[in-house]
């Protein structure tokens, strides 16, 4: 998972730098060190995005459980009171 995220991120970073050079009508590989920086930043970004996505899903589960519990307290508790 980390390897594929790193590879995709590096590709994205490289692509971004090449696209940026192309927009400025420069040779695609001008200043190749910028492409290396782009690949590094892209790899870091992709890995962090994947980790953040996992954390987001966990936090979302916590929030949904909280909402479910609040609804059960409100509606099932009410039903229990009425039946009493």
């Amino acid at each position, binding site marked *: 998972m980390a390897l594929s995220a790193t590879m995709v991120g590096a590709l994205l970073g490289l692509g*971004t730098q090449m696209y940026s050079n*192309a*927009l400025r*009508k420069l040779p695609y590989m001008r200043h190749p060190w910028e492409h290396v920086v782009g690949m590094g930043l892209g790899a870091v970004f992709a890995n962090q995005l994947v980790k953040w996505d996992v954390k987001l899903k966990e*936090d979302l589960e916590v*929030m949904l459980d909280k909402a479910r519990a609040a609804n059960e307290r409100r509606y099932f508790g009410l039903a229990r009171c009425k039946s009493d």
Partner: protein
Amino acid sequence: MFNLFLAVFPEIFIINATFILLIHGVVFSTSKKYDYPPLASNVGWLGLLSVLITLLLLAAGAPLLTIAHLFWNNLFRRDNFTYFCQIFLLLSTAGTISMCFDFFDQERFDAFEFIVLILLSTCGMLFMISAYDLIAMYLAIELQSLCFYVIAASKRKSEFSTEAGLKYLILGAFSSGILLFGCSMIYGSTGATHFDQLAKILTGYEITGARSSGIFMGILFIAVGFLFKITAVPFHMWAPDIYEGSPTPVTAFLSIAPKISIFANILRVFIYGSYGATLQQIFFFCSIASMILGALAAMAQTKVKRLLAYSSIGHVGYICIGFSCGTIEGIQSLLIGIFIYALMTMDAFAIVLALRQTRVKYIADLGALAKTNPILAITFSITMFSYAGIPPLAGFCSKFYLFFAALGCGAYFLALVGVVTSVIGCFYYIRLVKRMFFDTPRTWILYEPMDRNKSLLLAMTSFFITLFLLYPSPLFSVTHQMALSLYL
């Protein structure tokens, strides 16, 4: 454990940075020793750095966000919704500032106050997003709006800019007055300005029979004030003139940043504070009218900026679909819609700024762009196809989710109008593509190379627009969290 200082440190930092940059600008720009240097770029870079540091402080200072916290006499709230909206706003501001640097050089624009006012308005918008009281909300709106009135007129030698600033001031002040009148009527009828108290009083007020003309008029006036600010029909008249007359970076900023903060406010006030059939009908009508007018009026435009202004009005209509639903899915689709709209608009205005150097003002001037700069023409085409909602681009995803949210809550007519106006909108978006690839311009314009900031911004936003559909999961999860945290 909630730490108040960490929670408000980003706002404190950006206010201090704004004032320090103002003093720096005033002292050095009037300095005879340094030969009265133009400081717009210098202050611009420092301003961009301040925004990025604020973003880092916000990200680093986040507590456990499944719990909401109220602070400063319960006037402000920090939760998931606030956190992500503020991060998104700061990213948009950073993107907009990065587009400006070449503009300062090309147009010989040496007003450093421009950046200071952008930072001050950003600060106002940060407070707007976290406001949890009508008074705090209004003060933050005014802080944001007053800065906008001035930056709209910042190009002092241009009568169009002065006209835009004056129009914006008059209409903005009018809408702020209506908003305040609505707040005062709500306060007069309920005795409350805090959103928690208003939620307890106003929830279901139309059903329980606790009707009051004061409450109804108050909510109506607040809705009208907000609709003015987001340029929804029928309160949209100011937008095309002001977007066209203002300097292009200002137009970019006006199209993106205030919509984020004002929609955040609308969700807090109306979804949490009060939501009833009347409000839903108002937003239904405004959504349908905005989509129809945005589609039809844009067809008649000959200038690029006016076309983007009407396109923005149309997109506000699509985004209001999410609000009109009143469901969690609706709010989630609204937030997805705003995020994607902001990135597409940043892309579009970065291209307009790049072309502006070659004095492209009319749509007809875009002719043969595919021959002079094919990559830029392809980027513009991708942006236009995304605006039109053509798959597999990000714009399609946002419209898809909005229409499905509308279908999910039974608003079939809303979804139908959305689809039909999207098809009509394709005409003028694809007309731009046709001009670039198949037409020749009236006068051939020499290409001038764009700067690195714009090219990097364009590359990143274009990749997002193109590749979003491959990995939409983070945006879906974060917007779901934001929607839930409005209720929890």
